[in-house]
């Protein structure tokens, strides 16, 4: 079932490539159909998933490169389930959302988006480290193509920067993976890259440090954790709308997912020891992202920097290493995907009409596009984490988790919530209210039926998660519990026993609580 999920989009891409270039409508519908089928399969998976079991479900495995012990093995747990769900929802939306704006090279574009969906799903579902790395790197190629061929004026620079930056960070992960494998081969007496088997290996502390560092840098660039975020504004800004949506909504989550999936299993001691550092960088990212967003004149750059800030919350949640924080981080991953994806679509709507991303070129749009104004307001408030929307659930849980570790973490995190409300509302005011400044106001026609259909599922998800997050929390709870339990191994527990000073809410050692 999982293999079908991963390779269905690829089959769609192959069908698209077989169609003649001129039949653009057919290409679009085939593309939508294959990502739509993937969505249905994903929904079926969500329904069939057993929430009470924290381990891997629906596992499949086969030998792939037996001489080196590399296997094709995939599986899903509550953590990957949420991200898979996000992926299968966002991709059809991104495809339909680009129907209006992509007119050249429709065939290649559709095929690239579908190939990207395959690689992303593979990344979230791989249980073998090399398979994970293969999908992880394979994501780069279609994404760089999307930026380089359908992007904005500075697209070539942005694509190359994106590619080299992320690849330079991740090749070191490959060396680290091989090192883990070698230690495992000595301890287990078998060649394996399977995560399940590697969980039984205890790496010596010295090598845990550098292996954790190699993994962490690869993931941190993808997230991006401040100060490794400098590729992100360029890539987001220059990418076409669909590229920005996928990049922000899903690709950034690959980094945070990597932290949750691999660090607790392979390098638990190093993760516990590095948690304060990660939290510190996350808080800097939250505040810095919010501050820099406020200073932007380009709408897409503003949203790009807001991602730095919002992903800071995810990292803060992960670094608090407790149930609330980690579940909050997961929910925040999903809600950031929905809200920021929607925000990029909002900007895409404006850009399609006026071909400008500058905030100063707009004003008084609300009067011209009333339906658009409603959608923008909802999306904006969800990104600003208004209670009742999805953004609130994630950030609230993250802050809860952070406060349980240290009041300072929580207090500084709250600054980010305030900041994001400030810059988002400021941007909304500049664009939507005030005197109209657009050069061609007649081009600012309200949302078409297709565009409303694109936004409808996102708006529905915003309220659904905001008002009733239980289905997501229920399904991820067991898996997060299992992940946290890995940090409770003897050596880790010993490091945590002295009660931490600070303004804790309970007397127990906080970071060790499940």
């Amino acid at each position: 079932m999982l293999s079908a999920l991963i390779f269905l989009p690829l089959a769609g891409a192959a069908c698209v490539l077989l169609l003649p270039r001129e039949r653009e409508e057919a290409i679009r519908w085939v593309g939508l159909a294959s990502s739509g089928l993937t969505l249905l399969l994903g929904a079926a998976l969500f329904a069939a998933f057993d929430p009470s079991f924290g381990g891997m479900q629906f596992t499949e495995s086969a030998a792939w490169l037996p001489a080196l012990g590399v296997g094709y093995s995939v599986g899903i747990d509550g953590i990957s389930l949420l991200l898979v769900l996000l992926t299968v929802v966002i991709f059809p939306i991104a495809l339909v959302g680009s129907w209006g704006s992509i007119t050249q090279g429709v065939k290649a574009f559709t095929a690239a988006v579908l190939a990207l969906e395959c690689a992303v799903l593979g990344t979230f579902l791989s249980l073998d480290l090399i398979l994970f790395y293969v999908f992880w790197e394979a994501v780069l190629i279609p994404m760089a193509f999307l930026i380089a061929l359908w992007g904005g004026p500075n697209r070539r620079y942005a694509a190359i920067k994106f590619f080299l930056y992320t690849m330079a960070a991740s090749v070191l992960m490959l060396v680290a993976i091989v090192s883990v494998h070698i230690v495992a081969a000595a301890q287990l007496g078998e060649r394996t890259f399977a995560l399940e088997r590697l969980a039984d290996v205890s790496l010596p502390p010295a090598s845990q440090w550098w292996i954790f560092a190699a993994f962490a840098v690869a993931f941190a660039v993808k997230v991006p954790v401040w100060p490794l975020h400098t590729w992100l504004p360029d890539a987001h800004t220059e990418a076409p709308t669909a590229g920005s949506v996928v990049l922000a909504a899903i690709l950034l989550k690959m980094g945070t997912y990597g932290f949750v999936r691999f660090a607790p299993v392979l390098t638990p001691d190093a993760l516990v020891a590095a948690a304060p550092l990660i939290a510190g960088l996350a808080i800097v990212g939250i505040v810095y992202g919010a501050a820099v967003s406020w200073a932007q004149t380009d709408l897409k750059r503003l949203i790009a920097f807001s991602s730095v800030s919002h992903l800071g919350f995810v990292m803060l949640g992960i670094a608090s290493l407790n149930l609330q924080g980690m579940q909050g981080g997961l929910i925040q991953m999903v809600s950031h995907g929905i809200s920021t994806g929607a925000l990029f679509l909002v900007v895409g709507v404006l850009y399609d009409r006026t071909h400008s991303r500058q905030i100063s070129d707009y004003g008084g749009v609300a009067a011209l596009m009333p339906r658009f104004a409603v959608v923008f307001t909802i999306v904006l408030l969800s990104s600003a984490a208004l209670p009742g929307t999805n953004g609130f659930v994630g950030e609230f849980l993250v802050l809860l988790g952070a406060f349980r570790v240290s009041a300072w973490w929580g207090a500084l995190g709250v600054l980010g919530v305030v900041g994001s409300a400030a810059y988002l509302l400021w941007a909304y005011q500049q664009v939507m209210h005030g005197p109209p400044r657009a050069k061609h106001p007649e081009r600012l026609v309200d949302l078409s039926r297709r565009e409303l259909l694109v936004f409808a599922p996102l708006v529905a998800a915003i309220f659904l998660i905001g008002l009733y997050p239980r289905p997501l929390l229920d399904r991820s709870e067991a898996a997060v519990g299992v992940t946290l339990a890995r940090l409770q191994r003897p050596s880790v527990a010993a490091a945590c026993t002295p009660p931490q000073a600070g303004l804790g809410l309970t007397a127990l050692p906080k970071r060790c609580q499940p």
Partner: protein
Amino acid sequence: MRAPGGLPPITTPPVEIGLILPEVIVLATALVVLVADLWVGPRRRGWLVGLSLAGLAWAAWAALSASPGVGFSGMYVRDALTCAGDLLALGATALGLLVAPGYLKRHGLDRGEYYFLVMIAGTGAMLMAASRDLLMLFLSIETLSIPLYVLAAFRRGFARSQEAGMKYFLLSTFASAFLLYGIALLYGTTGTTRMPELGARLAELPWSASGSAGAALVTIGVGFKAALVPFHAWAPDVYDGAPIPSVAFMAVIAKVGAFLALVRIFPLTLGSTAGEWTLALGVVASMTMVVGNLAALLQSSYKRMLAYSSIAHAGYLLVGVATGTAQATSAVLTYLAVYVAMGTGAFAVAVAVEREGDEADRIEDYAGLAARAPLLAAATALFMVSLAGLPPTGGFVAKFGVFAAAVEGGGPGGLALALLGVLTSVISVYYYLRVVYVIYSVGEGDPPQGVRILPCRMLGVALAVAIAAVIQVGVLPATVTSFSGRVVELFR
């Protein structure tokens, strides 16, 4: 028993034709093609390629079914490495044959000698894998190289091609002299040129300057053919001037031959004195990776860029040789198999593109190729992605195998080589993907003037085979790695 006249009898060594059957088949095919060329009309030259391919296929079958053994008074050995080398060389030769006809016809060079020379060079590479004696190695290197000089100068009316052939010839004979002198020094030190005895004696004897100098000179001689830094300076110039089909073939076959010889010399012969050469080879490998990749960044010519890229790949291959474990050696063979496909493929693409009646060697000549020839463009993109070592192509499996083996078996030095390897691979992504970007970019400036795309059926077959191989190894690597894993038995 004494012959009348008091002279000792001359016993001719037994001719074990069964051992060298694959080489004999290729050689015979080459001769048949050379002679048949005299009767075949100009419109039927395609038959010559077909005949040659049939011969190569027969040789491959013979290589797979031949039984191992040592022959010709210990000069020749047929083992797992020979078999792998035969298949690699035969594959490279077959691709080299298929790439050429369209180009040769366009430039009025369509003569049977071309196919003859390609197959003789292929035989040389096969013999290099099978050499069990340094003199035999020298002879097979010459068998490989001399046809390549002619192939480089095959466009007789074209001064740059002449220059390339001459340059290659002069520098290469110089390297051959190094090789011979090294063999002489090793013979002087140990009293033998047979590799197994040589390795054993060098391990027994105390360190001697002549032994080390001899080994170093042999390495230089073979390293020149493999275009290792700092013996690489000829490669960009020769590749630049020689006709593209010749380059597509020689870049690959020289690497196949040279690396099979290096594997035979270092891990297999000198395995017991590994401490003395791993560092030296590691340093050469680092220099080759760094110089090859950095210089490739600066090129504006597609051929020169690929020339430096082939130098860089020699560096990655040498990482595997320097590591020297069984795992690393089998990774080198896998890498060679992938490189045969992607290296030939990358050059072969340029055969189909022409600017104003001549080779289209500037990268910008490929601008907008995707709109004009989508399949050719997709093939180029695939080869570039594979050369860059990105999944899910064979290039990734190849690099992963070599670097994983270096980390596992190479100690701290191996780890350093692997780190340098992955980092220089990141650099390489820039220049490979620049080509892809140029191909797929739409509406930037004017399309290049006078550039034509000339499809050719045989070239299409070659590209299809190369594409299939690159994807096959990338998606189902076990098919190739299990085969190259057989070389492990040599280390027992």
